[in-house]
């Protein structure tokens, strides 16, 4: 048995109904430290002997770089761009996440449907339409959010990139105020999910002890459903 496959659209026709692994989503603001946190959880789990894997929103480096070209071009509109992200995430779900869960892995999703959805809605797309497009997506067994204020997220972004992402902005691409306003929107869109879903917040992704406590929770969960 294991955990039931639960999808955003009820009864999405996947072949399997249960998986022995655990599906962990890392979601939060852009620049909140998701990747740092995902990699640290993965490292600690592996060092304790738990099989885990980190997946991103893209199925390959090539698809990611092609997407970046489109993003910088800025001519592709929000609906087409979101559908492209949704298609990539459908590939990742079918080709990577589900097979690994079926094999008993702890799958750490660096971005799940939750923040993909929030970004699309924050960019002006209809909530219900975006819901539809992500109907195939798995509901995570646990969501972990790196806590970050929009300003902290902007600072982290600017430490790793030349400029702020023009698509993560309201009205003023690459300006700090536009980025902050966009992250505020995302945060408010995440708020109801924080209350409805199994959700944990990490205050400091660089705090080894805080992450270790979270890893312990995941390991205890894993013991409940041995692969």
């Amino acid at each position, binding site marked *: 048995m294991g955990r039931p496959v639960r999808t955003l659209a009820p009864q999405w*026709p996947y072949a399997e109904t249960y998986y022995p692994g655990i599906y962990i989503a890392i979601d939060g603001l852009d620049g909140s430290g998701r990747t740092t946190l995902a990699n640290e959880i993965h490292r600690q789990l592996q060092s304790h002997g738990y099989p885990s894997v980190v997946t991103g929103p893209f*199925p390959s480096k090539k*698809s990611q770089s092609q997407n970046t070209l489109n993003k910088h071009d800025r*001519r592709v509109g929000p*609906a087409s761009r979101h*559908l492209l992200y949704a*298609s990539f995430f459908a*590939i990742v779900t079918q080709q990577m996440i589900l097979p690994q869960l079926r094999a008993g892995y702890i799958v750490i999703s660096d971005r799940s449907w939750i923040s993909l959805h929030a970004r699309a809605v924050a960019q002006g797309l209809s909530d219900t*339409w975006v819901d*539809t497009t992500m109907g195939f997506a798995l509901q995570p067994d646990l969501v972990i959010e790196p806590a970050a204020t929009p300003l902290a997220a902007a600072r982290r972004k600017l430490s790793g990139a030349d400029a702020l992402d023009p698509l993560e902005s309201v009205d003023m691409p690459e300006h700090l105020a536009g980025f902050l306003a966009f992250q505020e929107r995302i945060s408010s869109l995440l708020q109801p999910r924080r209350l409805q879903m199994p959700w944990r917040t990490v205050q400091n992704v660089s705090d080894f002890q805080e992450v270790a406590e979270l890893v312990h929770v995941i390991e205890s969960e894993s013991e409940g459903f041995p692969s």
Partner: protein
Amino acid sequence: MTVHDHNSYQGRLIVAEGTDGSGKSTAISLLESWLAAQGVPVYRTAWNSSSFIKPIMRHVKKKEWLSPAAFSLLHASDFYDRYHRLILPRLEAGYVVLADRWVYTAWVRDSVRGLDLSWIQSLYQDVREPDLAIYFSAPPDIAISRLQHAARELKYYESGQDVSGLHDRWASFLWFQEKMRQAYLALADQGVLQLFDATLSITEQQKILRQWLQPVLEAQTASSSFFQGSPPISKTLLKGGL
């Protein structure tokens, strides 16, 4: 987000649907030349032709990564890119848009691939309804002989091998085309598509299609006002037949 009623735009949208090899692209191309020769502002668009999505489409199809959902979403991405950047501005400006496949291709193909039709239709909600949507009906053997005549190699997704489970590409293609033909015929029965006999000669087809187009385009005459000095679509011009 501002919601626009794309059905109120003054341009005209003519859609050709049908299985591969049904002759719709040839017919569309001839209609485009006919309209353009008469000074009618016309624009042709084809399914799966966004220049931005194409390299991504090629990459993931080559990898054979696409589940039915991913396939559907990626083609919707292609559609919406063309829809917002290329098609809608022209419809709003009063062009005649000839579409070689429209959302019905997704309805038919993706439901044959096992996806829920209402889910597929929701992806394309609020998309402009055509003024004329024609289903080019041709039996599979004619369509296949046309494709074989073109000496074209079938591809994995085109032949439906991702869902048929058949190793032989032509056998899979035949199975897939027949499934789609049945789905198209159902849409024609429901009155969504206008059934057209695509087994006729190309010349005969054009005669009929031009007759079908006339009432659709005549209705546009009053509201069309194009490049300065250029005449609007008129009954006289459109009656210039073969």
